[in-house]
């Protein structure tokens, strides 16, 4: 897949918008909403690697998000470890956990895989809540400090944190894009479309799934670390099944198996939820049916609609 020039221009424009956003928007509240969306989007990309590119529904994503956040949060708040050490440690920890769980979970596919990963997600929350001495139990832990400065760069201000998190988001998108564009990415899709066929042409389906699952967990872990650091707080809700559900809502609305989908869906839904904050108590009541409607009528989400519109336009034009 070559990189079309129009797409290059589009991506550059988007990146430019993201860069100037905190400079022109003089509203810290709005900026922090966008930062939260970026952080969550990183984990949503992880969900998409599994669901979109290998076709497996992983319901442990919130749990991995929690493991990443708690690992970094505990290291930084209780042991004064620097962010720059806590981050790689937490991501490595989540990846290793993903690998171990993958060994058991990936013996199954489809519904059993979803059930097993759901169980993993629930167990992670139970462990977080019970292991009070370390995790702070249901109260969580406060006082996760901001990242320490590197050379002349300081990360105390909101704007600085915005750029730091934008950097990780761009890296995430780049990694997912280049992976999906590579031979490895194509093996993911080949395995999704027909595991038998993929095996027949010599693809190691087991290894492919394992790789995708570890990457998915690593991205959830990265998102979790940044979430904990940005909010300065860790609580069991960040690892809960509801968190997984929210990520699923973002992904399905944005569009599964598309590069723009996870970011688009997360930004849009997070933004809407802020606008409609007066109705926050009805959030789950509304998002449930919305997800069902999206699944039934727009299974490819907004990115799919955009693609559809483009094809329609091209057909008329040509």
């Amino acid at each position: 897949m070559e990189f079309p020039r129009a797409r290059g221009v589009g991506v550059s424009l988007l990146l430019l918008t993201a860069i100037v956003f905190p400079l022109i928007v003089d509203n810290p509240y709005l900026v922090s909403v966008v930062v939260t969306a970026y952080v969550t989007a990183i984990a949503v990309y992880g969900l998409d690697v599994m669901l979109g590119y290998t076709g497996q529904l992983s319901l442990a994503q919130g749990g991995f998000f929690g493991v990443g956040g708690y690992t970094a949060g505990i290291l930084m708040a209780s042991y004064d470890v620097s962010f720059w050490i806590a981050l790689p440690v937490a991501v490595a920890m989540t990846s290793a956990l993903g690998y171990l769980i993958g060994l058991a979970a990936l013996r199954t596919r489809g519904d059993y895989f979803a059930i097993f990963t759901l169980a993993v997600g629930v167990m992670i929350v139970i462990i977080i809540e019970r292991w009070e001495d370390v995790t702070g139990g249901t109260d969580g832990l406060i006082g996760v400090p901001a990242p320490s400065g590197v050379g002349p760069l300081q990360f105390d201000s909101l704007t600085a944190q915005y750029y730091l998190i934008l950097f990780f988001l761009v890296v995430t998108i780049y990694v997912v894009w280049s992976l999906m564009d590579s031979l490895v990415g194509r093996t993911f899709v080949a395995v999704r479309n027909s595991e038998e066929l993929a095996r027949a042409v010599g693809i190691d389906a087991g290894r492919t799934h394992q790789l995708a699952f570890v990457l998915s967990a690593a991205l959830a872990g990265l998102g979790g670390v940044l979430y904990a650091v940005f909010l300065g707080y860790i609580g069991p809700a960040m690892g809960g099944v509801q968190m997984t559900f929210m990520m699923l809502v973002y992904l399905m609305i944005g569009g599964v198996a598309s590069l723009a989908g996870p970011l688009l869906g997360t930004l849009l839904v997070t933004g809407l939820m802020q606008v409609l904050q007066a109705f926050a108590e009805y959030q789950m009541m509304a998002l449930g049916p919305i997800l069902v409607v999206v699944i039934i009528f727009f299974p490819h989400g907004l990115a799919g609609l955009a693609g559809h519109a483009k094809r329609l336009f091209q057909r008329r034009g040509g």
Partner: protein
Amino acid sequence: MTLFLQQFVNGIALGSVYSLVALGLTLVYGVLKVPNFAHGALYMAGAYVTYVMLTSFGASYMVAMAVSIAVLAVLGGSMEWLVFRRLEGKSPVHAMIAALGMLFFMEGTADVIWGPTFRQVPSPFNDVVTLLGVSITEQRILVIVAAVAVMVGLYLLLKRTLVGMSIEAMAQDREGALLVGIDTRRVALLTFAISGVLAAAAGSLIAPLLLVFPNMGELIILKAFVIVILGGMGSVPGAILGGYLLALAETMAGTYVSFAFSELIAFALLVLVLVVRPTGLFEKGV
């Protein structure tokens, strides 16, 4: 010995509820081949309907339970009619995600109506019966007896009626069932209604013994999944046996080891099954 017997009876009462929840799940899986993640929400809704009938309408316990069963039959059926029917022939992942959507819709709705607080459901059966040194509340006896009655009823329905046989036929071979003239959509609708009935019975029976709250279904549904995987997806005897076994294992572990350990049993079993035999221990041969 008395402690053992006491815990044995408690385990059987808990197992009755596990089995009822697992039965609904396994029936729906048999017919639709989709794990209904929203099944735990049906159980939760069943408990709330009973709670409302008892506290707001002053109904008797039996009437409250009957209303709950009727409401949940409709709710279960409409799940199939409004959502799952429309996802027929699509990737099973779609149906799973839709089920999650309904789970959070129902939990969110319960949260809006009743709030996240734990509710105590009053029971008229609070007297304690003592037998061989074991004291059992009447409510626990009711749970055990009623659950067995429901299971016998379900057995007769599946084995002796045309509707029940259609459900079994469809679970065995959907296309074959269609070929011999079974209205598969009607059967799917009915199966969901029955799963609602089973969930309502379970929720209403256990409600006075536990507390009622919006996510009360989340942990039990996970256990029901473990039971159904252990017993073989779609297997009715597997769901019944598995329900009692898991509950007994949990109760005994909670008594003799620790409560935290008992909570981990279901999960440990799940890992064990996946490692030893990913298709389930007692899966029926085709």
